[in-house]
Every structure is written in structure tokens, then in C-alpha cells.
């Protein structure tokens, strides 16, 4: 039987979330309410999809910092295409286009990493600049706030709707379902297929994987295409929900996303990472970013708070691991 390991990152992050909520609930009794929950869930959609992708890459022993540029590219290129060529396109088709653009850009990463064998950090650092530069130079820089109707429809399509005691609404869009579906699909791939085993295997020991006949290159290629597709989808969902397609958006989030994933227990050295941990990490980051006012931290201290949180969240487990290692030595 698997025994429960109390020292896992997941447990720690969960404890921090609970502690944060308790403090917030004390300083504002309205904090523990359905609108807070739906706000947090809504704000987790795009970050969550990014985080799933980042986690898969980390598990495979790589790192991807270009996914935000892929998302911005896919999002903006699709919006421009829709606006100029097919304004009445239904949203599923638009989403498919954005996802394919993401996958195509991901395949460029995949080619450089899997086929040419270049280091992942360097490649994605480079493609981050290239994708963003290409987007802003050749596709456009102006934000589009009159989104095509298809995308607007999608953002207004609510899964849950309700009225609060004070008469205001709360709602959760169907876009949240995208996150749920992606999480489920990724869970199946990682935990129930041989492909997932291969991803963990190449993250743990690439040479061993090669020796037992795992096609390391093909697996890596798949991963970067998959992550690109996820990023493309996240991009278009982001634009739909924000009702604006801004090519400057998203880029700059990449390190926070990776921090959230590592907070959730994924290892930067590869081979280890879970979806539960990833979502807990995302939840924590979203919670803190959106609730500092509630617990009375002035915005001048926001940056310090998030920094300290990242340090504590990664520091405590790292320190524990270091001590455990010293004990086992």
C-alpha cells in the first residue's frame, strides 16, 4: 500500500492555501464565498492550462519558456485571421485554428530540441524572442477589442450562474471546462499510457530510455507539439475571456507559471511532477495575486509578498529534501 507522505510539496502548498484563506476570512468575512471561488477558478483557467504544459515539459527533463509567446502568437494571429477573412466563423473552428498554430510553433521547438538536440532552455529562450518578434513585426501590434462574434459568444457562455445575497451575479464560464478536459486528458496520457511512462522515463534517465528502445526524439517532439497546442488553446481562451486580443499580452508570465509548477512539487531536473501539485501551485499563485487587498497588504508590498511566497514555497521543501538527503547519506 502506498503510505501517505506528509512531506510532499502538495501537502505544504495545500497548508499554505488553507492558512491564507483563514487569515483572509478573519479580515473579511465575505471572503469565503461563492464569488471568491468563481473568481479564482476563472482566473486559473489560462494559468492552469499553461501550467499543465509547463509541468509536462519539466517532467520530461526540459524547460519551456516560450509558451507564452506561442500563446500570444496563436491568439493574435487567429483573431486577425477571423477579423479579416471569416468574421462569422463559429468559435470551435477558431479554437481549432489557434490550437493548430500553437502546435505548429511547438513543432519548431520540437524540431530544434528533439531533432537537432539543442538544450531546451536555450532553444525556448530563442524562440520566445523569435515568435514574439515575428508576431509584432509582421502580424501586428494593435490590440483588437472588437472580437469576432464567435469568440464573444464563447466568453458569454456560462456553466454556472447565480445571484448573491447583495444582488450581484457570480458566474463560471464554460471555458473552465477546457481546463478540466485538458487536465483529464493529460492525466490519462501521463498515468495510463505507455507514452506517459516514456515521458517520465526520459525525464528520469534519457540514456536508459534510449537503451530500452524508447524513441526519445519522437517523444520529445510530441511533448513540444502538445505544449504548443495547449498554449495556443490557452491563448485563444484568454483573448475570448478578456474580450480583447492584445499581442503584447501573456509574455512575461512564463517564469511565474514555472514557479507555480515547481511550487507544486515538479522537479526542475526532470522526472517528477503531478497534476494535483501543479493545480495547487496555480491556485496559490492566483489566490495571492488576487487577494492581497483582502488581507490588507498594500500594493506597494505586493511584489515582496509574492517573492517571499515563492521563496518559502520552494525553500521549505528544498530544505527538507536537503536535510533528508543528509540523513540518508
Amino acid at each position: 500500500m502506498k503510505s501517505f507522505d506528509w512531506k510532499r510539496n502538495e501537502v505544504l502548498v495545500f497548508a499554505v492555501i488553507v492558512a491564507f484563506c483563514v487569515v483572509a476570512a478573519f479580515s473579511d468575512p465575505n471572503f469565503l464565498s461563492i464569488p471568491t471561488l468563481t473568481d479564482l477558478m476563472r482566473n486559473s483557467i489560462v494559468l492552469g492550462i499553461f501550467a499543465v504544459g509547463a509541468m509536462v515539459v519539466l517532467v520530461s527533463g526540459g524547460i519551456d519558456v516560450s509558451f507564452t509567446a506561442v500563446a500570444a502568437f496563436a491568439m493574435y494571429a487567429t483573431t486577425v485571421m477571423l477579423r479579416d477573412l471569416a468574421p462569422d466563423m463559429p468559435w470551435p473552428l477558431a479554437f481549432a485554428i489557434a490550437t493548430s498554430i500553437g502546435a505548429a510553433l511547438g513543432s519548431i521547438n520540437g524540431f530544434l530540441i528533439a531533432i537537432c538536440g539543442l538544450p531546451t532552455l536555450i532553444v525556448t529562450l530563442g524562440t520566445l524572442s523569435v515568435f514574439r518578434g515575428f508576431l509584432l513585426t509582421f502580424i501586428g501590434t494593435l490590440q483588437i477589442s472588437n472580437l469576432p462574434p464567435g469568440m464573444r459568444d464563447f466568453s458569454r457562455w456560462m456553466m454556472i450562474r447565480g445571484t448573491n445575497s447583495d444582488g450581484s451575479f457570480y458566474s463560471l464560464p464554460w471555458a473552465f471546462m477546457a481546463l478540466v478536459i485538458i487536465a483529464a486528458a493529460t492525466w490519462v496520457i501521463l498515468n495510463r499510457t505507455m507514452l506517459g511512462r516514456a515521458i517520465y522515463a526520459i525525464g528520469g534517465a534519457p540514456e536508459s530510455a534510449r537503451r530500452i528502445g524508447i524513441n526519445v526524439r519522437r517523444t520529445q517532439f510530441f511533448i513540444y507539439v502538445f505544449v504548443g497546442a495547449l498554449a495556443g488553446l490557452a491563448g485563444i481562451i484568454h483573448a475570448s475571456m478578456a474580450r480583447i486580443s492584445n499581442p503584447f499580452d501573456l509574455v512575461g508570465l512564463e517564469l511565474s507559471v514555472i514557479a507555480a509548477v515547481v511550487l507544486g512539487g515538479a522537479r526542475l531536473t526532470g522526472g517528477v511532477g503531478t497534476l494535483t501539485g501543479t493545480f495547487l501551485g496555480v491556485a496559490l499563485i492566483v489566490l495571492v495575486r488576487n487577494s492581497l487587498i483582502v488581507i490588507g497588504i498594500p500594493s506597494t508590498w505586493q511584489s515582496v509578498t509574492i517573492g517571499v511566497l515563492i521563496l518559502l514555497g520552494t525553500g521549505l521543501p528544498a530544505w527538507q529534501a536537503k536535510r533528508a538527503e543528509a540523513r540518508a547519506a
Partner: protein
Amino acid sequence: MINRILHSTEGRLAAITLGVFVAMAILVPDRFLSPANLTSMAFQFPEFAILALAVSVAMLTGGIDLSVVGVANLSSVIAALFMSHFAGDGQGAGLLIAAALLSLSIGLTAGLFNGLLVAKFGLPPILATLGSGLVFAGLAIAMTGGSAVMGLPPAVAWVGNGTLLGIPVPLVILAILAAGVGWALKYTAFGQKTRMFGANPLAARYAAMGTERVLLKVYGLCGMLSAVAGLIVMSRANSAKADYGSSYVLLAVLIAVLGGVNPYGGYGRIIGVVLAVLSMQFLSSGLNLLQVTNFAREMIWGILLIAVMLINLVSFRSKP
């Protein structure tokens, strides 16, 4: 001979840098080679070159320092607050030296804090410095409410805008720092240990090398270099602010990698970093003269980075 040069990473990079320079000189001959442009370039690159130097040193140990800009701004904000507080007393140069020492010690403290996180608490450097960078920048915001600190004594302007024997002071500072760091990495026990630690941290521990001390020194050095960059930025902006140069973090990483520093540790030469900075600056200024949009510049940097990696790859493979 040419073959020999092209067989080393730095040799190829030198060829590329020269190529960029020649290309720009041909495309916009009168303006690119004009003294005004050459001086302008010489004033521009030292600040991010010094940050790239700091990132490179951290990368040698297999780590990274993403907090360089945060440290630079925190130390310059504190130095500026200090100077604006005492500026009335009129002792320009003396005050400047005191402020410089103050900012260096802030840089050192911040760097040692990073070192402590990495060495003692075992945080992955990328996250330790990401988090601490936010903390440093945040402290600078909290101290200033986010606005710029002004009212610096006139002597400050000399650091970023003055010349020494006709050479821009920032360039002189960069030259001294690059030479110093390059020399230290090669000829001092600290430098050799840094490299060896980067090559295999576990073996370094088993060889009874003081790994924690090395890391503390490395990040302390990064912090001090960042503080120097902060001083130059402060002088060039004649003010200090929490968000100056925020786009320089990834640029510094890009330059270090382009300069041939192995992000996984153990290999890297300062000359490579210097060449990478030069090629970036030539490209950047040249493209500005050609009125190419700044977005295209970003794209070209990315392409340059990947191209250099691919060239390295091809020439490694084709070795006999």
C-alpha cells in the same frame, strides 16, 4: 589558422561579431561608422554587459541569477536615497564614493542572501533568484512608493556619462570588471573552484571543496556586479527607480548563452560574453539606423541565438 579559430566557440562568435560589424558598416556606412554612433554604442552596452557578466558567473556553477536587475535597482535606490538625503552638504565626489560603497555593500548583501538560499537551503537557483528578485524590486518599490528618487549631486553624472581619456567611463568600468572577472576565473583558487563546482557539484563535495563558500562567493560577486550596473543606470538616468532596466534580465541571460556559457555549468569564457554583447549592440544600433522596428530586433536576437547554437552543433559533429 582560420580553421583553428573557427573550431572554438569563441572564435566562431568573434567571426560572427565581425561579420555583423562589417555588414552594418556596408549597409549604413556614413552613419554606422560615424564617431557619434560609435560613442553612442560605447555608452549603451556596458550596463547590460555587466549584468550579463553577473549572470554568466552564476551560470558557470550551473545556476542562474534572475535577480540581477532587482539587485541593481534596490542598491541604486538606496544609494540615491542616501545621496539625496545628504546632497545639500555639497561634497559631491566624497558623497558619491560613500554612496558607491553603500550600494556595493547592498549588492553584496543581496547576493549573499541568494547564495544562502542556494547553498544552505538548497533552492534551485532559477526559483531562488526569481523570488528574491521580486523581493528586492518590491523593497525598492516599498521604499520609494514606486516613484523615482531624484535630486542627486552633479558628480553622479560622471559615472554614466563622463569620459576618461576620451573613453566613456561606463566602458572603462566594464573593461576593468570583465578583465578582472576573467582573470579571477582563470588564475584564482576561487575561479577554478567555481568552474569545477559547476562541472559536478557532488564530486566537488566529495573532494572536500568548500562548496557552500564557493556558492556564497559566486552569488555575492553577482550581487556586487549588479550593484555596479545599478550605479551606471542610476547615473545615466540621473535618478533611481524600482523598475529601470526590467527588460534586461532575459537579455542578460540571452547574452550569456550566446557567449557560449554552458547553462548547465562548468564551461564559459568571459571573452565570449564580451563578444556576444558587442554583436548584440552592433545589430541593435545598426538596425535602428536602418529604421527597422524594435520588434524585428527582438526576433533577430532570437534567430542569432539559435543560429549560433546550430552552427556549434554542426561544427561539433563535423569534427574528425
